């Protein structure tokens, strides 16, 4: 069986004269958690909606699990967290989840158990009998996530899975997604690059409706050996001078004003202790930092590319 679970060929979507997506060719491999990112208007939501079958392509084709996106063969094998869909108003959330589970082929009893299971996963079991209108925005989001976790989907597509969630819930949801990633192929569309960096192995970057890049997150963040520092304050413009005595340092990049960020690139010959030398050098120069990360942050790399 093919290892490609999603394939698009020359996929385009136009809204009137606006080319929201233009000639996108993509392959998503089985078992890979992939992030879909891009600035507003890049075509991220359009691509996500096309993959989910919510939108119909203007031209080009989509294959999901080897079938057309409309095929009955993929029903129940994919699950989706749509960003802006709302639940029915007059039915308790538990009942609604049971109904959706029944549509995946479960009998009534199994469907109810499944609804209980997924509500427990998102820590909302206590709201089983509550109407959607009684729930907060974050709770509704968790219910929507819960419906995407039902059954044993081969592909899970999540649109902004942590948007609107508090940090604790967000971490809990990320843990659930990470666990699901061991058995399913997951695609996450998000503006939050920390989530993408945390969860995804691959990243698809869209720009102006076109595929900008599709590569490993690790390649993107560690292509060059680097240390990223979050400083106490914005560094001086001439901060690079403190590394003059270190031939291993190849470049220094400063963040935008207010970001308090500095990236130090270096050569790694495998023997020298470049990282320690850099930190020592900063300490001597009196440059203090709050946080240090190996490699570049995905956020910074993607932002640089988008500029």
């Amino acid at each position, binding site marked *: 069986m093919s290892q490609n679970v999603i394939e698009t060929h020359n996929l385009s979507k136009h809204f009137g004269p606006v080319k929201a997506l233009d000639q996108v060719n993509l392959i998503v491999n089985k078992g890979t958690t992939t992030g879909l990112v891009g600035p507003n208007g890049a075509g991220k939501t359009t691509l996500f909606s096309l993959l989910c079958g919510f939108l119909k392509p203007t031209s080009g084709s989509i294959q999901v699990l080897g079938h057309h996106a409309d095929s009955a063969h993929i029903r129940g094998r994919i699950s*989706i967290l749509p960003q802006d869909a709302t639940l029915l108003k007059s039915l308790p959330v538990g009942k609604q989840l049971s109904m959706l589970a029944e549509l995946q082929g479960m009998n009534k009893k199994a469907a109810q158990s499944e609804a209980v299971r997924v509500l427990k996963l998102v820590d909302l079991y206590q709201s089983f009998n509550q109407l959607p209108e009684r729930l907060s925005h974050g709770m509704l989001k968790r219910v929507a996530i819960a419906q995407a976790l039902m059954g044993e989907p081969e592909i899970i597509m999540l649109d902004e899975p942590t948007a609107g969630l508090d940090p604790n819930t967000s971490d809990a949801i990320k843990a659930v997604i990470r666990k699901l990633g061991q058995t399913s192929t997951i695609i996450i569309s998000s503006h939050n690059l920390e989530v993408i960096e945390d969860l995804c192995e691959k990243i698809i970057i869209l720009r102006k409706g076109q595929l900008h890049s599709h590569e490993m997150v690790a390649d993107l963040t560690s292509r060059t050996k680097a240390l990223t520092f979050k400083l106490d304050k914005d560094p001086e413009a001439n901060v690079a001078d403190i590394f003059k005595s270190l031939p291993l340092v190849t470049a220094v990049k400063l963040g935008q004003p207010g970001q308090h960020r500095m990236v130090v690139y270096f050569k790694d010959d495998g023997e020298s202790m470049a990282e320690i030398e850099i930190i020592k050098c900063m300490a001597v120069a009196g440059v203090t930092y709050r946080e240090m990360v190996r490699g570049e942050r995905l956020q910074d790399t993607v932002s640089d590319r988008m500029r």
Partner: protein
Amino acid sequence: MNSLRLPTVITLVRQDLYYAIRSARGLLFLVFFAVFWLWLFSKLTGGAAQWLANPEGNVLIGWLFDPKVARSLFVDRSPTLSAFFLLAVSTVPVFVLFAASDQTANDIGSKYLRFLTPRCNRIEIFVARFLGATLLVALAYIVITAVATVMAIVVDNTRFTTVLLDSVLVMLSLVVYALPFIALMSLCSVVVGSAGLSALVGISVYVVVLVIVAVIEIKMPQAAEWISYLIPNATKGLIIQLQWSQFMQALMLVPLYVAFYGFMGWRIFSKRDI
């Protein structure tokens, strides 16, 4: 590509009916429908319809509808059941255009369909919503016809078996007459994003074509007749005399309407963004 799985359709229909009697839209229809008929039944309980079986009443019905209709419905038949039937046929468009207005419209607007499409095909959703609306409307008319039948048996002096046989034909005629309207609403509800707008579109289309037909009929009656076949009440002339032979003709005409409106609706729904 878009195969129809019967178990999924049945589940969708069951869920649609379950939701219909719990949603504001469904309850509003049922309450409005029940209040309207309770009020009319309260007027018919005293045997008020028996007057329509008299020559004066026959003249009035003949003037309002057709002399043939007056003879067919009010000679040797229960006048109460016949009066109920005439009222029901006349109000079917209003109730059905309202009751069947939200087959997919609100779910398109709220994007609830996005929870359904990973689990069912669009054709399954489209067919199930049509069947759900049909069952809701059919159940409402079956219940109300049963009440009218009981009342006719109590109030009129018509033979019990005649009333019972007529009530079956009344029930079937009302459901058959309602079907093209439900199909029209399945078309209207895929083009807009709210049930209210869908009802408005359906009623507007119906009324506008009625007016156009009425205007054209003055100069070109033949053309008007052809145009009138566009709207879903073309079977009215066949069912209103309450004759099995004409009912069978209507029964053969109805699938054409359902297929025509349904196909148009499906073409839009299968291609539209949700």
